[in-house]
C-alpha cells in the first residue's frame, strides 16, 4: 500500500514537473513573441542606418555602440531659415495634443458611458430594451463606416474649416465622435446589473435621488470596471490614427501617431529613417508602459472580468 502511495506520489511529481515545464515553456514562448517587438523597437532606435540595413541583422548592441543620436535628433531645433527656433520634429507639440485628446475623450466617454449604462441597467422607461438592442446592433457596423458620416457632422458643425480651423475646433473634431462607446456602455451595464436591486430600493426608501444613488452606490461598487474602461479608452485615444489625421488641417494640431507616420520618410526616395522613427515610437510608448505598470492590477482585473484586452 505504502509502495503504491510512493509510486503515485512520484508519478504525480513527474506529471507536475512535466506540466510545469510545458506551461512555462508555452508562457515563455508567448512572452518572447510579445516582447520581441518591444525589444526590436528599442534596439532599432539605438542603431545607425547602416546597422539597420546590416545583413544578417544585428541582434544585440553593446552600450558603446548605441546611437543615442536618434533620440537627440527628435529634440533638435532648426538653427536658421524661416523656421529658425522651431523644433525639427515637433515632438512635444504632438505629445501635448495626444495627452489633451486622451484626457478629454476619456472624461467624455466615462460620463456618457456611466449615464447610459445606469439608464439601461437601472431606470425603467418604455422601450428601454428595444433601444438598447438597437444600440448594441450598431456594434456590428465597422467603425470605418462611420468616418464619412462623422466627417459630415464635424463639417456641418463648422469644426473642419480648412482655412480657419482653430485649435479648439480641432480638439472638438477629434474628440466629439469618440465620446461615446456602445461596447463600454454594454460592459458597464452588465456590471451595474449585478448590483442587487435591494440596495436601490433601500436608497429610494431613504429618499435618495437616482443621480445620488449612482454617485454614492453604483459608481463606487463598479469602480474596477470603470477604471478598466478609463484605461482602455485612454489607450485607444492615445493610438488613434485615421480620424485625427482626417479632421486636423494643420501640423501643429496633430497627434503623435500621425507625426510618426510621415515625419521620418524622405518624400523623394520614399525611404524611412527607421532609427529615428523607432526612437520616437519608444518615447511615445513609454507613458503607456508607465500607465500599465502603475495600474496593472486594475487592468488585469478588468481583463479577467471581461475577457478583453487593450
Amino acid at each position, binding site marked *: 500500500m505504502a509502495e503504491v502511495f510512493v509510486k503515485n506520489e512520484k508519478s504525480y511529481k513527474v506529471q507536475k514537473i512535466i506540466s510545469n515545464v510545458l506551461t512555462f515553456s508555452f508562457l515563455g514562448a508567448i512572452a518572447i513573441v510579445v516582447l520581441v517587438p518591444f525589444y526590436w523597437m528599442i534596439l532599432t532606435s539605438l542603431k545607425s542606418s547602416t546597422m539597420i540595413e546590416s545583413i544578417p541583422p544585428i541582434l544585440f548592441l553593446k552600450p558603446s555602440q548605441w546611437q543615442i543620436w536618434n533620440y537627440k535628433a527628435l529634440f533638435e531645433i532648426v538653427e536658421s531659415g524661416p523656421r529658425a527656433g522651431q523644433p525639427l520634429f515637433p515632438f512635444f507639440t504632438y505629445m501635448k495634443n495626444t495627452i489633451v485628446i486622451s484626457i478629454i475623450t476619456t472624461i467624455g466617454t466615462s460620463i456618457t458611458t456611466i449615464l447610459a449604462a445606469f439608464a439601461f441597467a437601472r431606470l425603467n422607461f418604455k422601450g428601454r430594451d428595444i433601444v438598447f438592442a438597437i444600440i448594441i446592433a450598431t456594434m456590428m457596423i465597422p467603425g470605418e463606416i462611420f468616418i464619412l458620416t462623422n466627417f459630415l457632422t464635424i463639417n456641418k458643425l463648422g469644426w473642419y474649416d480648412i*482655412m480657419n480651423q482653430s485649435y479648439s475646433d480641432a480638439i472638438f473634431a477629434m474628440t466629439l465622435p469618440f465620446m461615446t462607446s456602445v461596447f463600454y456602455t454594454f460592459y458597464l451595464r452588465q456590471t451595474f446589473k449585478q448590483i442587487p436591486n435591494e440596495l436601490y430600493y433601500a436608497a429610494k426608501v431613504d429618499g435618495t435621488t437616482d443621480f445620488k444613488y449612482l454617485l454614492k452606490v453604483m459608481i463606487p461598487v463598479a469602480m474596477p470596471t470603470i477604471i478598466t474602461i478609463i484605461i482602455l479608452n485612454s489607450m485607444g485615444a492615445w493610438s488613434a490614427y485615421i480620424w485625427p489625421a482626417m479632421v486636423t488641417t494643420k501640423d501643429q494640431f496633430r497627434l503623435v501617431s500621425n507625426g510618426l507616420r510621415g515625419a521620418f520618410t524622405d518624400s523623394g526616395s520614399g525611404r524611412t529613417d527607421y532609427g529615428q522613427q523607432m526612437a520616437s515610437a519608444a518615447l511615445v510608448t513609454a507613458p503607456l508602459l508607465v500607465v500599465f505598470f502603475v495600474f496593472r492590477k486594475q487592468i488585469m482585473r478588468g481583463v479577467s472580468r471581461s475577457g478583453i484586452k487593450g
Partner: protein
Amino acid sequence: MKKILLSVFALLTVFVLTGCVEIATTTTTEVTTTTTSGTGTTAKVVMDLPDEEVTILFWHIYGSGKTALLDKFIDEFEAMYPNVTIESQSQSDYNTLREKINTGIGVNQVPTMALGYPDHFAGYVQAGAAYSLNNFIYSNIRYEVMDSTSTIAGEFVDVSLDLENFVPGYLAENNQYVGGQYYSMPYSKSTETMAINRTVVKQHVAAIRAAGIDVSDEGFFSHTTPLTFTQVQTLGTILLNDTATTDVANFQCGYLLNYDSSGNMFINMSRQFGAPYTNSAGEILINNDTTKSMLNYINAMFTSRTFVLPNQFGQLYGSTNFKYGDICMTVGSTAGVLYNIPTSLDVAANLKFGIFDVDFLQVPQPVATSGQAVTLSDGTTNYNFTGSLSSVQQGPNIGIFKNASTNEKLFAWLFIKYITSAENTALWAMDTGYLPVRLSAYTSDVLIQLTPTFSTTYVDFLSIATDYWTADGDVDWAATDERWDYLHSSMVANIAKNQALYYQYDPAFPAGSSSAGSATIRVEAGYCLENIYNKSKTPTQALAFLMNQIDW
C-alpha cells in the same frame, strides 16, 4: 407634389447658377498692348493686379528638411505680392493628403492648391474639383503691380507661361487628362539611374573592350549613350560569378543588375519593348504578345542572374546588397542616390569590395535610338521587337482647385510660376535632390549656399561630375575639397539631364467600375515580376494573375 418638384427645381437652378458665377474683382484699368514673344505676336491686355487680401492654402507632404527652402520661396513671393498670404501645410504623407482632399471635395473643403501624383489629379479631375491651368497658361493678361510696398512695384507680370522651357516628358504627364488640359504642373521630379561598381569594372577593362564595349582605363562607360540590354548581358558573362555568391578574388558579383522598383521595371520595359500597357483613358492593354515576350525575356534574365530584384535579399531596395558587393549594378531613384555609396559608416566586414568607387549611368535600353528593330537573345530564344528609348519620370506635381476664388486661383498660379522659375527650380533641385523641371535651369547661374563654406551654381554643380569624368577620375582636388561631397549627386543630375530627352510617364487614371486605377496597376505589375522572380508563377501564369487582379 407639384409644389415640391417646383421647389426642388428652383433650388437646383439657384445652386447651378451660383456655381457658374464667378465675381470678377480685378479690373480697374484695361490697356491693350502688343508684345512679341519667341512664338509670335500676342496682344496683351494690361490690368492692375488685384489688391484684395488673399490667403492661399497650399497642402503638401514636405517635412522640415524641405520646407525651409519652400518657406523661403513663400516669404519672397509674399514680399512680391504683399496682399497675399500663403499657408503652407504638410499633410504627413501622400495617402493622407489624397484622402483628405477626396473627402473634402464633397463638402467643399479643399485647399487652394496641392501637391499630388498624376493619379491623384486624375481623380480630382474626374470629381470635377481640379481647375484647368490652360486658363492661365494661354492667358493674354498682363498685370501691373501697383502696390508700392511690393518688391516688384511698377513691374508687369504675365499670367501666361512659356511651356517650351519645360522638360517635354513632364508636360506630357501633366496634360494627359481629359481634353489635353493641364490640371497640374511638374514640381518635385525624379527619375531612375543606374549605379555601377566601378572598382569591379576596372578589373575587367580589357575583357570588356574585347567584347566590343567602350570603357575607359578607369572603368567609366559612356555617360551620354546608355548601355544596351545586349551589352548588359555581355557584361554578365564577365562580371558575374559562376555561382550566386560574390567572388572577391576575381572581382565578380553573384548578381549583375538589380531593379529597385519592380513596378517601374515592368512599365519602363513595356515602353522599351513597344508593348502596350495602359492609357490615360483607363484602358488596360497589358495582355498582348509583346508583353508576354518581354516577360519571357525578363524571366530568362532572372534565371541567369543578369537581372535581380531586392526580394532575393529580403530587402525593399538593392542598395544595401550593392554596397555589400552582392550586385554589380543597380537601378534606383535619383532621390535615393546616396544610399548606394559605401562609406566608413558601413559595417566594414559586410563590404566585400571595401569602400569601392561608384559611377552612375543611364538605365539600360534595348536600342541606341528609338524605332530600331532589335533582337535580344537569352541563348535559346530570340525576342524580336521595335525598341524605344525610355526612362521613368516620377514625383509629384502641383495643381489648383476649382472652388478657390478667382483671385486665389490667380495668385496660386503666380506662385506655381514663381517656384518653377528657372532659378528656383534649380535651387530646389540642388537643395532637395529632385530634378529641375525646366531645361533652362541647367544653365542657371544663381548661386546656392549648399554648406556654410560651399556655394555653387547649377552649371558648376553639373561640372563637378563632368570634370571628374573628363579626367577619368584623376582630378587634383584636395581631400577636403567639398566637391567630393557632391560628386555622386552631380553624376546623377548629369545622367538625369541626358535621360530627360526620353522620359516616359505612367498614364494616370482613377479606379473605374471595371478596372483598377493606375496606382494599383503599377503595384500589381510589380507583383507580376516578383511572382516570376520567385518562380511561384510562370510568365504566362503571372500575366494571367495580373489581369485577374486589375481587370474586374
